[in-house]
């Protein structure tokens, strides 16, 4: 009989990981407190939602929400553009390939990581307190949001660029900054554009809910109608958002394919 190599023992990660995952999942579901009695009682309320949700009041929504919807899109456009262009130079500093000083690399990298830990709506809440209610707070929140994501994606892309052109530029007498500008930047520009489109999509989604904490956009209208359970007024707004989000997504998928 042929000699068959012995099957390797399961790895340590699997030995600890599987039981822990299952145990933690069960524990989490208990912590959430699913209670069948409560669920049954609440489930009788479903008509409160479904009756109104599937009975959209189109006229009301078009009359009252179109202005806010435009505001939402404007917030997303401005914030994603600002955030991504602020992140562009930052990510060169947060990459090992283009920043040789370990200290500054570490500072920029942890700064971007730190921003990324705070959820978008937490930023929105903080900015509404700091600069007042309104779309400006929303723009600032999404600037932080898009800056963090772009910084992470782009700095990781810069990590893996071809270092040859950078060296060539330096060999022909370019200073470090000039070399980065002329040899590293063109390499990542297609990625930058693709990431920008992706972040713009994320911002459109995020800007919809900013209004729930008073940071402008269509969420403001959703919030006031939600409190009175006027789902018949909310559902057309949700459908508008759906159409816009899917439309922008299709457009950016098309454009990304053209660029990359």
């Amino acid at each position, binding site marked *: 009989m042929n000699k068959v*190599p012995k099957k*390797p023992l399961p*790895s340590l*990660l699997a030995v600890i*990981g599987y039981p822990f995952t299952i145990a933690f*999942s069960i*524990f*989490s*579901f208990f*912590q*959430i*407190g*699913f209670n069948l009695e409560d*669920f049954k009682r*609440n*489930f009788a*309320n*479903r008509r*409160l*939602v479904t009756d109104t*949700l599937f009975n959209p009041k189109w006229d009301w929504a078009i009359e009252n929400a179109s202005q806010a919807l435009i*505001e939402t899109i*404007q*917030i997303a*456009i*401005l914030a994603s*553009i*600002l955030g991504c262009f602020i992140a562009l130079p930052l990510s060169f500093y947060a990459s090992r390939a283009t920043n040789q000083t370990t200290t500054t690399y570490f500072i920029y990298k942890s700064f971007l990581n730190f921003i990324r*830990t*705070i*959820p*978008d*709506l*937490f930023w929105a*809440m*903080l*900015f509404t*307190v*700091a*600069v007042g209610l309104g*779309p*400006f707070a929303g723009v*600032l929140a999404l600037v932080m949001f898009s800056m963090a994501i772009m910084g992470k994606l782009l700095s990781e892309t810069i990590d893996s660029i071809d270092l040859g052109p950078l060296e060539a530029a330096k060999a022909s007498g370019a200073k470090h900054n000039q070399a980065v500008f002329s040899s590293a930047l063109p390499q990542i520009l297609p990625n930058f*554009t693709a990431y920008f489109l992706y972040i713009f999509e994320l911002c459109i989604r*995020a800007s*919809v*809910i900013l209004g*729930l*904490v008073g940071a*402008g956009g269509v969420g403001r209208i*959703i919030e006031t109608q*939600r409190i009175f*359970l006027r789902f018949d007024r909310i559902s057309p707004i*949700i459908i508008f958002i*759906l159409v816009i*989000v*899917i439309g922008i*997504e299709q457009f950016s998928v098309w454009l990304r394919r*053209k*660029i990359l």
Partner: protein
Amino acid sequence: MKIPSQPLNQKILKYLITFLIVVGSIWSASGLEITPDRFLSAPGKIWILISAMFPLDLSQEAIDRIVPKVAESLFIAWAGTVIGAIFSFPVSFLAANNTSINTISRVTKQILNIIRAFPELILAFVLLPITGLGPLTGTLAVGIHSIGTLGKLSSEVIEGIDDGPLESIKSSGGSKLNVLFFGVVPQVMPTITSYWLYRFEINLRASAVLGIVGAGGVGAELINQLRFRDFPRAGTVLVVTILMVLIVDTISAAIRRRIIKGREIIV
């Protein structure tokens, strides 16, 4: 020396993108009445808020209130991810065009697109009257949204697999189910598992926010403290949340790297 000119198509695209960016930002800034001096004055105002948060409120009472809420966010995120993973896994095979029939694949993809288009918060407040105030609503909202995103990502992984192993199973007499279990699943499992973990990291941020509409988690705590202008306590909420997210991110990133890289086996 003659340098070949850039294709026209690319040039037009470049101008088009620049044009769109410039016009878009001007239109947005004017529509929102945002001027550069408002931007310049913003950092000062934020600094005032941040300095109001320090020193943090680290009294026993505050910690006892905040830590369980943060833990609740963690449980919501995990349970939501589990729901998303369990349901998205079979769905992703239906959505991938190499393991499914063309029509079914298209329809499933569209359904996933529609699910993905709803933010968690909107799902949460629609579910709220049915499932009640509390973490259950948050979990369902996070879970449903995760089905959409994980389904899309997983189906793309399945579409990118190597056909060789599938063919060899077929040629040695394996049934369609055999091909699926021994050809497709082992190839996609590492990447899909790492996507699950990655989604868990995102869901953690989403579940932290859900408290705003009363769907459980730490969000309610932050918005209340900010409304009552109790900045030291709001600062504590923020710091505890950031710490938890940082810890979870680090662990999860390490596990993901290990899953993708695989174990070195000494033969």
